[in-house]
Each structure stands twice: as C-alpha cells, then as structure tokens.
C-alpha cells in the first residue's frame, strides 16, 4: 500500500493536518479522563493533604504514626457471646477465642506527647476471625466525634496548627472554628464534663461511627459499639505527670489480664447513623457481644502493632460500614500515613541501603 500523502492532491495537506489534530484530540480525551479521576483538575481534598496537615501540627517523626503517635502494643484474645452470633455472621463471633493484636494510644503526632494533657484515649484492634473474617477497628474514649464530615475535620486541623514562633495554638482561630461548627457542641460538652481515668485499663473506647451487622437470615441492623472496662474507674490524679499511661498499663497486665465487655448499641429507625457527632438515646437496646481480654503489653517500637494499619474499613463478612462519611476518609488517610511511616521504617531497618 502506498503512503497516503502520495495518493492525495494539494488539498490533502490540510486534511492531513486535520487528521493529525483528530488523533491528538482522541488521545487527549482519555488522558483528560484519567487526570480528572486522579483529582488533578480540581481542588478536592486528598488524603495526602490530611497527612501533610497532621505533620504540620504534630511534627514529622520518622517511622511513627502521623496521628496517635504515642502508644503501646497490646495483645490477647476476644471471646464472643452467643448473642453476638445472632446479630452477625462474622467469623469473629464464632464460639472460642480469637487472637487479638491491639494498640493503646493518645492523639497527636508527637510520639513523646504528654499523657496528662491528652484530650482522649484510643484503642486500635485487629481480631483474627479467620480468612475473609479479619476485623480491624480504631476506637476513641470520647462519647462522640468532634465533627461529622472529613472536610470539617481538615479545617479543624488547620485551625489547630501551632504558631511557628510560639509553638502554641491560636485560641481565636479555634474559637472561630467552633462558632462556625455548632455540631462540635456535643464533643465539647463531653470534654468539659469528662474527668479522664487514671489508666488505659479503666477507659471506655467507642466506635463513634456506625456499622451494619448482617445475621444468618440476611437481616441488617445499624449499630455502634463500645468496649466497657471491667476495671474500676479512678480519676486521673493531678500529679500523674506526662508519662504514666504505658508504664501503668504494663504493670497492671503483669499482675492480671485486663478485660473489657464489647457492648453493641442498636439503632432505632430515625437515629442518625451517618453522623458521628450525635449520640443515640441511652435507652436504645444494648447487647453484650463478648469479652476482650488483654494479657500482654509492650513498647510499640518493637511490637506487632507498629506495622498494623488499624483501618476501620477492614471488616469481616457479616459487618459492613454505614454511610458515615468519616469512615472512608479515615481509611484513606490511615492508608497514606501507613505508607509514609512504613517507608521510613524500611529505611531504618536498612540504614545503609
């Protein structure tokens, strides 16, 4: 076959240019579609921006989590109740003991943060329910979450960014943020009324976000859960200091296993299942779903929990997420933080590479 330009007359040059233009346009179309998918054509909030902001606020500490950087590794098992089995087909509710890796922590990006100043405490768990039945979660001691939407949490992080000179937060900025966000009232009320306990062991940890349990018959139920300590509450003492939580917990575990009851709270029709700033009425029915037993604890930099992403969307079959917009954001942001710190961790493991 002859090359086309030999077959076309003088007018062919224009149409040849036209055809090249057509090729360029048809190739640019999928390129643009990809650029749009990747968010390159818009200013939408990305997980990377979140983690960058966390680094702005808490500093960048190689190998550590970008939030909840200070903590310790714990392990033990979960023993479900028969009542839990009636609500979900998840393997973690099958009779017996399911091994658990966990992490107790305080918020903030500073791995040497002050325990006595921590606004709340957190517990990450990974429960082994068998293949396709691993259950991960990250719980907080607050009664509700501070905001309902990821973009508002990002704005809060921006408002919390410390002044580069004084190292302090700008109280005016924070006040302005809370004035603009009335949904933060429930969290702030909890904060003002709550006296922290004197230990990780007698703290309560709440899912905050809602999830959906599916039973054998396919019936779906919206619910939230809490780990309620079986250790008695004692208020945090004024002279506990900045560094007591980990040592206290290790001392307690060395004496005896620490236990929590997994309590499910079932939503009624009309309860806000997609809004973590709103608690459900206390009279909603609860179900005792089993017992978490923690019988070992150790420093996080050598423990199994260091390299686990406690992503709340790693769920067993039989549990699925609600439409709460915070869940997808938490999953996306944790994943980016995980990639950053694991990359740093790998460098620390092979310093000469």
């Amino acid at each position, binding site marked *: 076959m002859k090359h*086309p330009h030999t077959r076309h007359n003088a007018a062919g040059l224009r149409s040849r240019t036209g055809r090249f233009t057509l090729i360029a346009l048809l190739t640019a179309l999928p390129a643009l579609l990809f650029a749009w998918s990747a968010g390159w054509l818009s200013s939408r909030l990305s*997980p990377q921006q979140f983690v960058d902001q966390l680094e702005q606020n808490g500093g960048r500490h190689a190998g550590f989590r970008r939030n909840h950087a200070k903590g310790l590794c714990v392990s033990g098992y979960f023993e479900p109740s028969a009542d839990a089995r009636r609500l979900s087909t998840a393997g973690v509710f099958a009779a017996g003991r399911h091994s658990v890796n966990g992490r107790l922590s305080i918020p903030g990006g500073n791995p040497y943060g002050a325990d006595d100043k921590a606004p709340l405490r957190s517990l990450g768990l990974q429960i082994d329910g068998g293949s396709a039945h691993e259950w991960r979660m990250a719980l907080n001691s607050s009664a509700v979450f501070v905001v309902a939407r990821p973009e508002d949490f990002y704005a809060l992080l921006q408002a919390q960014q410390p002044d580069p000179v004084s190292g302090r937060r700008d109280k005016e900025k924070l006040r302005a943020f809370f004035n603009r966000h009335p949904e933060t009232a429930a969290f702030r009320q909890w904060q003002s009324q709550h006296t922290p306990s004197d230990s990780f062991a007698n703290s309560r940890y709440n899912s905050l976000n809602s999830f959906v349990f599916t039973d054998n018959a396919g019936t779906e139920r919206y619910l939230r859960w809490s780990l309620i300590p079986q250790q008695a509450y004692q208020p945090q003492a004024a002279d506990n200091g900045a560094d007591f939580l980990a040592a206290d917990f290790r001392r307690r575990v060395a004496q005896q296993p620490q236990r929590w009851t997994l309590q499910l709270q079932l939503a009624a029709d009309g309860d806000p299942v997609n809004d973590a700033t709103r608690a459900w009425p206390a009279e909603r029915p609860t179900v005792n779903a089993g017992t978490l037993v923690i019988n070992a604890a150790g420093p996080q930099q050598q423990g199994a929990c260091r390299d686990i992403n406690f992503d709340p969307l*790693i769920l067993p079959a039989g549990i699925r997420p609600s439409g709460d917009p915070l869940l*997808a954001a938490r999953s996306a942001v944790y994943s980016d933080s995980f990639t950053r710190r694991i*990359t740093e961790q790998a460098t620390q493991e092979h310093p000469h590479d």
Partner: protein
Amino acid sequence: MTDHFHWLIRTLHWLMAIAVFAMLCIGAAMVSSVAGSHSWLTGLHRPLGMLILLLALLRLAVRLMTRQPGLPPDMPRLQQRAAQASHILLYSLMIVLPLVGWATLSAGGYPLILAGEVQLPPLLEKSNTLYALLRPAHRWLAYALLLLILAHLAAALFHALIRQDGVLQSMLPGRAKK
C-alpha cells in the same frame, strides 16, 4: 496472511481496554480522595485487578496459540520494532501490575478480599522493605501503562487515519478475508 486477529483476541482486547482503563482511573481516584467513593472504589479495584490478571493470562495463551496478522511490510523498520516492543510491554504490564498490587497488600499485612467470603492468600510475607518498594512500584508502573495505552491509541489512529493500512481494522469486527 490473515488480516484479523483471532476473534477471541479481539473480544478480549476491547473488553480489557475498558477494564484496564477503568482500573487506572479507579486506582488514581481511590488514592486521591477522602470522599465516600474511596471505599467502594477500593472494593472494586481488587477484584477487578484479579479479573484483569486472569484475562491477560488467557489472552497471552490465545495469542501464542493463534496466528497474528503481520505488520504492513512497507512500515519503517523502527516503527515495526516500536510496535512489537510496545505489545510486549503492554502484555507484561497487564500481568505484572495486578501481581504487584497483590504483593503490595501482602507486604503491608492487608487482607485481599475479592468479595464476601473470598480472600486470596498472601503472595509473600509481611515486610516493610518490600512494601516500601512495591507500593511506589505499583504507582509508577500504572503511570507507565497509562502512557503506553495512550501511545498505543495514538498509533492505532495513525494507522487508521494517516497510513490507512488496515492495522486498526485487524482489531475490529469483521470476517477474515484474503
């Protein structure tokens, strides 16, 4: 000389064109968004990746077992070489990318759930070193595949609109004719 690819190759080509391009967009979207779409896109990315891996292996087998239409003999030598190399790279990436994705999840300690009760076993042990290599590799190989696909599309259109040599037709529907 057959002037069409085997019908199964042509079917797989267009099916995978949609699947692979969608997959690249899904991957780019899910890692750059904190919106609700992040979770369902991630849920779609993993089974779709495994489907592409299976289709790519099937396609490779069919391709090796069938006769392919040759390139036009008057095509410049350099273009012929580029065409052959790009096809080898396209096949390689369609197979390697899902495997690197699978290995990335394994190294990161993530369960790879295809759907419901179906979980794939890890390809390798949990490892920070491997995760730190594989996670960026997955990203850069995906960019490479995207660029190759765009070049492949431009070349196909070049054959159809400029050279008018029947190369694009060989991947379109139609009966084999002499």
